[in-house]
């Protein structure tokens, strides 16, 4: 993360206060100043921050913080409560028409990611809601925008309706809807061209499309890295089109995403989804409470837990535990475990989600090389079953073969074998420790 977390900053402030024995109103002011800076650095709009701070101050100056023995934590709690209230706490679902087809229109500035999001959202409703979508290419302005949607359609094996880039977008939308009805698609996505919210002629075009197809959802696509201008954009699009929701894109960047708060505050419309990667399945329902934590830099523990739950096979986990206990853990199991971890997504993402990770020295800017993991996998896969079960039999000539087979060097193989040995040794000690504890209450860790 590019910014120090609010928790870290408040900690600094509290250090100054600690000696005083009593927290004054001035101290609270100092603390809310830190909150203000954190929010501004997270790109929350200035006015939104101002209103927000006033609310926090009101509550913080009230008895609950001043009398508390841990004012720091109290302030964070107040801030988080207020943030969650502002962001909303419910996950907002897509509105589905009672009488199909459901019509969903995507709008936004240039480069926000409308076309890619259209593909992702269509993929999502097909997978999660069992829908049969039609994509309508109504961006006739940007070169190759239609081609882009068509390519996405091909990747997803989904039909795309287009009339070329000489047709009128309103006609395209209308005929697209007709086509959907004729072909019994129960959901239609209309991808519109990116435009500036101050471009009256282009905004009028959107109003005409909206009037022509009467969409169930008009979704504003917003780049999570947007700065202070997010409020102007959201306000204009909302006034012009009465949007029904927002999708936040590029949330996998190292941005705090304060734009989310700004957009919610000025439009009052829910953020429905977040796009979090380059792949077509990188779209998730938006969890407002988790976003609140992210903006403040408090880690996204819930997402992490959920990710882990979704990816780790419970059966396998139990089996692993047993193996660990009776020390029959082999290189094969090691490989298995690696695969499980990798299923959870890029390791950096996982680290970033853990609170306090910013504070751990050396971990702040840690970049985990996924290639390294691939090397380890390749090495283990190049071993024979006997070698995997009993690495002790791996002699020099076997090492040479393994290195050749995996495209690595003998040093790499040696390193892995040593790591595995150390790991086993450590496990043994841990097991011994728990056993020893029961028996004699003694530890046998080397440093004790």
């Amino acid at each position, binding site marked *: 993360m*590019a*910014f120090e977390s609010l928790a870290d900053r408040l900690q600094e402030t509290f250090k100054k206060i600690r000696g005083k024995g009593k927290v004054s109103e001035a101290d609270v002011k100092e603390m809310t100043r830190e909150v203000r*800076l954190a929010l*501004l*650095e*997270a*790109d929350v*709009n*200035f006015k939104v921050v101002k209103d927000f701070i006033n609310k926090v101050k009101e509550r913080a100056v009230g008895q609950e913080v001043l009398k508390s023995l841990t004012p720091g934590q109290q302030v964070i709690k107040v801030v988080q409560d207020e943030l969650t209230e502002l962001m909303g706490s419910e996950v907002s679902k897509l509105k589905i028409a009672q009488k199909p087809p459901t019509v969903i229109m995507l709008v936004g*500035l*240039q*480069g*926000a*990611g409308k*076309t*890619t999001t259209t593909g992702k959202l269509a993929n999502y409703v097909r997978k999660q809601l069992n829908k049969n979508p039609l994509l309508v290419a109504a961006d006739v*302005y*940007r*070169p*190759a*925008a239609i*081609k*882009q*949607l*068509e*390519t*996405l359609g091909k*990747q997803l094996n989904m039909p795309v309706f287009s009339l070329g880039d000489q047709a009128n977008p309103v006609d395209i939308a209308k005929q697209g809807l007709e086509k959907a009805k004729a072909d019994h698609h129960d959901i239609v996505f209309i991808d519109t061209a990116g435009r*500036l*919210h*101050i471009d009256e002629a282009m905004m009028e075009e959107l109003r005409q499309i909206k009037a022509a197809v009467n969409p169930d959802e008009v979704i504003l696509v917003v*780049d999570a*890295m*947007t*700065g*202070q*201008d*997010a409020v*102007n*954009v959201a306000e204009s699009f909302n006034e012009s089109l009465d949007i029904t929701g927002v999708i936040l894109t*590029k949330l*996998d*960047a*190292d*941005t*705090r995403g*304060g*734009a989310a708060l700004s957009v919610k505050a000025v439009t009052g419309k829910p953020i429905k989804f977040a796009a979090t990667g*380059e792949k077509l399945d990188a779209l998730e329902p938006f969890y407002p409470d988790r976003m609140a934590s992210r903006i403040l830099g408090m880690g996204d523990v819930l997402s992490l837990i959920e990710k882990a739950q979704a990816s780790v096979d419970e059966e396998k986990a139990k089996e692993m535990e047993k193996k660990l206990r009776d020390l029959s853990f082999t290189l094969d199991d090691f490989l298995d475990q690696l695969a499980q971890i990798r299923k959870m997504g890029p390791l*950096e993402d996982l680290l970033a989600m853990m609170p306090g990770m910013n504070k751990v020295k050396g971990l702040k800017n840690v*970049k*985990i*090389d*996924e*290639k390294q993991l691939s090397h380890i996998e390749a090495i283990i896969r190049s071993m024979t079953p006997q070698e995997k079960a009993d690495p002790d039999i791996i002699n020099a000539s076997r090492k040479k073969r393994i290195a050749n087979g995996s495209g690595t060097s003998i040093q790499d193989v040696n390193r892995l074998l040593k790591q595995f040995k150390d790991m086993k040794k450590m496990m043994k000690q841990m097991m011994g420790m728990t056993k020893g504890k029961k028996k004699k209450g003694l530890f046998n860790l080397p440093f004790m």
Partner: protein
Amino acid sequence: MSFFKKLKEKLAGQKESVTSKFKDGLSKTRHSVAQKVNNLVKRYRKVDEEFFEELEEILITADVGVHTVMDLIDELKDQARSRNIKETSELQDVIIEVLAKMLTKDEEETKLRLNPDGTTVILMVGVNGVGKTTTIGKLANRFKQEGKSVLLAAGDTFRAGAIDQLEVWGKRAGVDVIKHQEGSDPAAVIYDALQAAKSRKVDVLICDTAGRLQNKVNLMKELEKVKRVISREFPGAPHEVLLALDATTGQNALSQAKEFGKATDVTGIVLTKLDGTAKGGIVFAIRHELDLPVKFVTLGEGIDDIQPFDADAFVYGLFSEMMTEAGGDAE
């Protein structure tokens, strides 16, 4: 002589079109910032803490960034103290002077570095959706009109339709595009383009790359590789590594400039989409914290909607309203 007078004289020799383009594109910025400063000056007669707080607000709302704003405010406070300024109307000039000084350091550094004896290789990098491909189209057209031979390399092999998009721009500008299939190795496309540039002896080769978020390690490594391939084939190249930056981007722009800088030694910035309501204040923050010059700004969807960055014109556009008002004494 007042600051505005000096600026006006300096700009007098410039082509009207350049400044008016900036004025058009920046009219929103100008309205908001200049008007606010004006209002501010009118509202507060005295230079006091409250005045500075409001000024801070204006700059923050322009995405200048909290740290940069604080430094600016400190500097202004110092200036006000040392020049013994008590009335806000006097401070108006100082505000603009400080801002302009921050952007204008050396005029040479905002110019493109061209290779005098052979092909100039330009590498375009940036996150997704900032307008790299569009900017390349505009740049190609610009070079073409200067009478240079131009070749484009379709290095974005990842995003659907990116190659076609660059080809459309190539056609519009009347320049060739070297491409492979979607999904192929970008370094290989760039390699082929470099060979083609050599044999055709083109003046300028512009390499497109796929948009990538700066925190994706593997993708940034891929970019490093592309740059390595260029340097290996053309010693001294790339002569420019331009980072396309969306003017609507908030504080993350700094992180983008930092990380892309680490991976590819960015030499300059193209600030895109300045025709919206975004204030482009990140220019100050990037200059202040990373000392990276802005080389171009883009202001629309037309093929000629690109201008070399001119700090004077930028400031002129930003504050031209104030200039006419303050310029009353200049007539």
